[in-house]
């Protein structure tokens, strides 16, 4: 071990100690008999989940809403991302490129949940705000990737078409798009997968879907219903994970 490793280790230990001290946190406190009993009582209060058919219907509705938020949000993001990627790939000059990159970075750096809180203000409570939030953040992510794909796409096909008098727009559609479409589709589907998980929790700030149901049921101390929502979320995440792994294996293999 070099001396620099020891320094890093010491710094890490110090920062861990400082963190606990700063938060005046004592993990031991959480393990006292008293607090363990309280914790246990809290956990037990959730059982058993509310499995009445009426509530399950509402869960189904919430799940559909979650999937719809993620799908529409991703679709909007794809369109918006592509519109921003064109200038960001330098197709309309250097000024437009810098401006578009700034916008994309801004959209991307602000987390979905913060966008959701902002959109709840702009469009009111409900799934529409969640859709907009996902669309804005994802547009930033997708737009950047699209811009990179466009910049790396071979230029010759479109140039050749321009040389035979084709207008710029058609040269792009016939010469560049066929090369980049598969990547665009792959990115969008991948982001959709991530967004399903995200859409499930955006509701905690009031942006619709399962998250909003969870927030309501916890606020009203309907623990049994909250557990049902959590189970639904868990299932959704596990199913989406499994489906995407299965699909990827089939597409690659």
């Amino acid at each position, binding site marked *: 071990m070099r001396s*620099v*490793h020891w320094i*890093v280790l010491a710094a890490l230990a110090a*920062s*861990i100690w*400082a*963190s*606990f001290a*700063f*938060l005046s*946190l004592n*993990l031991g406190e*959480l393990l006292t008999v008293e607090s363990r009993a*309280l*914790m246990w009582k*809290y956990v037990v209060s959730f059982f058993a989940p509310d499995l009445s058919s009426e509530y399950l219907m509402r869960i189904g509705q919430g799940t*559909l*809403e979650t*999937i*719809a*938020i993620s*799908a*529409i949000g991703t*679709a909007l993001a794809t369109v918006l991302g592509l519109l921003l990627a064109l200038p960001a790939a330098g197709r309309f000059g250097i000024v437009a490129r810098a401006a578009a990159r700034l916008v994309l970075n801004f959209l991307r*750096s*602000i*987390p979905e*949940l*913060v966008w959701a*809180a*902002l959109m709840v*203000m*702009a*469009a*009111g409570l*409900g*799934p*529409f705000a*969640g*859709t907009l939030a996902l669309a804005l953040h994802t547009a930033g992510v997708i737009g950047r990737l699209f811009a990179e794909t466009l910049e790396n796409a071979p230029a010759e096909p479109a140039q050749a078409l321009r040389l035979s008098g084709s207008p710029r727009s058609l040269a792009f559609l016939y010469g560049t798009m066929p090369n980049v479409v598969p990547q665009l589709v792959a990115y969008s589907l991948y982001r959709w997968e991530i967004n399903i*998980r995200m859409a*499930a*929790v955006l509701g*905690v*700030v009031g942006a*619709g879907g399962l*998250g909003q149901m*969870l*927030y309501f049921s*916890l606020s009203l101390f309907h623990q049994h219903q909250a557990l049902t929502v*959590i189970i639904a*979320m*868990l299932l959704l*995440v*596990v199913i989406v*994970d499994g489906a995407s792994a299965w699909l990827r294996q089939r597409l690659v293999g």
Partner: protein
Amino acid sequence: MSTKARVFAFRDPAALPRFALTALVILLLWPGFRLTEFDPGLLFDARNREIMGKFISTFFPLATSAEFLQLIWKSTLETLAIATAGMTLALLIAVPLSLMVTRSLSISRIGPGRGLLAGRLLRLPARFILMFFRSIPEIVWALLFVRAVGLGPAAGVLAIGVTYGGMLGKVYSEILESGDTRSTSALLECGGGRLTAFFYGMWPVALPEVVSYTVYRWECAVRASVIMGFVGAGGLGQQMELSMRMLNGGEVSLILLVFLLLVVFADAVSAFLRRVTA
């Protein structure tokens, strides 16, 4: 060529599947617009526009009163502390569980048959716990812990610890299993214990990857701890939520700026740590 075949040759065979696929996508997306109560008009609704307009108009100048800056400084430190403490907790959860589920560290696997079943029975629940921990999003854990231990950073630390413990545990065991396991099994077969086998067989091989992934997760934890503040788990997020609720644009824009700087800072620290330990 028959007449029918000739006519067919002048028709695009890909047209029908393409149209069908397009129609299917539209058909699937269409109800989505209703389910999400899609209505851009809402953005231009007079009341919403007034609230938003007022809010955005106060974005500049940034809130820079000394008192507020001090508050934000404290929240920023708190966010970093939550991420670091949360990661420590995550490690405490992940390391034992990942050692438990790593198959190549299993002594019973080498035989003779005794304990084979017991080993499997022990691995299964450990695997399940890891999956359970990481499959519930961190913000839901935060929501639950806020109600269990009260508003404040403790809930954030616990939420990060549990979620990231699940993630780290899974990835650690994957790293350990993907590495060259020959020296490990040699040690086990010579009668070495689990920990001996781990420290002498796997540790040196897997260490760089483990460190790099942990550092990357810490970076994610910084972001996550900001976000979890929105449900009351302390740090910058809680401050931002308060400022938003009071429609104080200047404060929100300052916090956003600090958040972006924090992300850049975390990125730099993690890059540095990875370079030093590589």
